[in-house]
């Protein structure tokens, strides 16, 4: 049975993980996302679904536990916030290189360094450009509500297994901490070991006499062979770019100006658009839901009709680079952001659009 509940975004992640039949969560406490593991420990899913929940000794250990679990074909996940996600970059690179699926949730806080525990979107580059060493991408989903926090857990797992690649939910401290109504899906069964062995013949499940032994690895010392492998990854990324782009548009039909914003910034921008429309300024919103693959084509198509585009982010200007790459200089693209843990108000966003695109 679906259930309507009021809860924090972080709690929704935990509830959705159990309900979608995740096999394991491995994490390390860090603000502002500790409720994810706290909620899981309260819910004791090992007694109901058999899901494993373990507090690891570090984020480095957590992501490597994901490697081990994913290598067995299991649906495993972790959550953390910016400094912890930085520690996981090595493991994510290895998982991309070993073609292992997993789900990572980043409830972003302001950096650099220890920074602040307040919300931010300053991990965009790290998330969408790879993050660790080597040529690889993560599948990046950007929730803008508690409902999407819950929904993207299952979506993230599905995409991760479809492409055998890590998926990342790029949220922030605001979405993680705020409470909203959320519809939770009914409990689904976890995959049995037999199902895993059938669905994921690549997994290390113990070598039966019927097959050769499986090796999960990212090492290839023959550079020609390694280029061939890298090409295989690139083909996979092109396929994602073709098939998996997700976005949402609002008020774009008559718009003369476009705001591009994701997650928390998209919600603030939606309120800013109401203020601007009350003044007679026709503004629309394009909200990327997948940040990788990025909605480049849609921004190109919509952007061409606009007098100006504003990228609104809680960073000093990261996604704006991808918007500009999409627009190729044909339309003016400006950035507005508050950062270091500061959340902009709708009025600030509305003022910025007027000043930067229309002229004060």
């Amino acid at each position: 049975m679906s259930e309507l509940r009021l809860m924090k975004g972080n709690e929704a992640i935990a509830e959705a993980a159990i309900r979608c039949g995740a096999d394991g969560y491995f994490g390390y406490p860090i603000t502002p996302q500790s409720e994810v593991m706290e909620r899981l420990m309260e819910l004791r899913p090992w007694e109901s679904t058999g899901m494993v929940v373990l507090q690891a000794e570090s984020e480095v250990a957590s992501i490597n536990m994901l490697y081990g679990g994913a290598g067995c074909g299991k649906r495993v996940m972790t959550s953390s916030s910016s400094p912890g996600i930085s520690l996981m970059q090595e493991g994510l690179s290895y998982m991309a290189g070993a073609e292992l699926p997993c789900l990572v949730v980043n409830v972003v806080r302001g950096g650099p360094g220890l920074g602040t525990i307040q919300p931010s979107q300053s991990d965009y580059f790290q998330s969408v450009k790879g993050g660790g060493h080597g040529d690889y991408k993560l599948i990046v989903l950007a929730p803008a509500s508690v409902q999407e926090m819950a929904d993207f857990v299952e979506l993230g797992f599905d995409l991760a297994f479809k492409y055998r690649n890590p998926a990342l939910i790029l949220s922030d401290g605001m979405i993680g901490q705020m409470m909203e109504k959320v519809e939770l899906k009914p409990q689904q069964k976890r995959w049995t070991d037999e199902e895993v062995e059938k669905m994921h013949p690549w997994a290390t499940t113990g070598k039966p006499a019927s097959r050769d032994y499986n090796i999960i690895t990212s090492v290839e010392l023959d550079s020609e062979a390694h280029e061939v492998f890298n090409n295989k990854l690139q083909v996979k990324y092109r396929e994602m770019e073709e098939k998996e782009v997700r976005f949402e548009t609002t008020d774009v039909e008559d718009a003369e100006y476009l705001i591009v914003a994701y997650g928390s910034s998209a919600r603030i921008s939606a309120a800013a658009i109401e203020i601007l429309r009350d003044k007679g300024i026709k503004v629309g919103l394009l909200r990327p839901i997948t940040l990788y693959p990025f909605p480049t084509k849609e921004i190109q198509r919509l952007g061409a009709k606009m007098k100006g585009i504003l990228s609104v982010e809680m960073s000093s200007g990261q996604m704006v680079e991808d918007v500009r790459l999409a627009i190729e200089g044909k339309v003016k693209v400006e950035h507005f952001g508050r950062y270091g843990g500061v959340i902009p108000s709708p009025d600030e966003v509305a003022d910025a659009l007027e000043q930067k695109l229309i002229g004060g």
Partner: protein
Amino acid sequence: MSVLIEDIKKAENLVHKKSSVLTDKVMHYCPGCSHGVVHKLLAEVIEEMGIQDKTIGVAPVGCSVFIYNYLAIDWQEAAHGRAPALGTAISRLRPDRFVVTYQGDGDLAAIGTAETIHACNRGENMVMIFINNGIYGMTGGQMAPTTLEGMKASTCPFGRDPQTDGNPLKITEIVAQLPGTNFVTRQAVHSAAAVRRTKKAIRKAFEKQKEKTGTSFVEVVSTCSSGWKMNPVDSNNWMEENMFPFYPLGDIKDV
């Protein structure tokens, strides 16, 4: 009188048989290296226990990174030092399987110290095999956490000086103190008798896993002829004279 080979190839004349768990790939190890012997023992134990289909191995970074080419069991190749973290998840998500990690000294006792200590302290149900030759072999002979005082390496070319380079780490004694370990032993493979004892220790570590009472830890003090810049015979002698006094052989814990 000529003897036909077919007359000799009889079961009663068989003195050695390659383990069916070992593949036919030619090992890349240097002459005198201990890895090949320990690989063989591990393969024999897995074969003799009949657990080839139930064992999942975790390979390290270091000379034995390609152990997965030599033993026909399912393998995961870990990032440097992280094998116990992988093993933790494998063991918890597949408690019906035997999990074995195989690591060198740099992997297990330097970069992966935290993963080693915490996996053993939680008592993860897995066998951990630790090859200690006091040097980084694969990267070309740099100082390891277990390099002896005065021992030369490319990053301590005048010998390890504890004043500047720190002290050699007895990680096995540390691991033995943790409540999560059920069997901790230190062995070597420098003689036929030692090889037999090491095989018994590996077998015991795997048998212990049937109890699900924690981590079984087998250190093998090993030679690295290339890293030590000695021939294999001198390496064995040097190990006996210098490594064994600091890393004494025998069971450290058995509960």
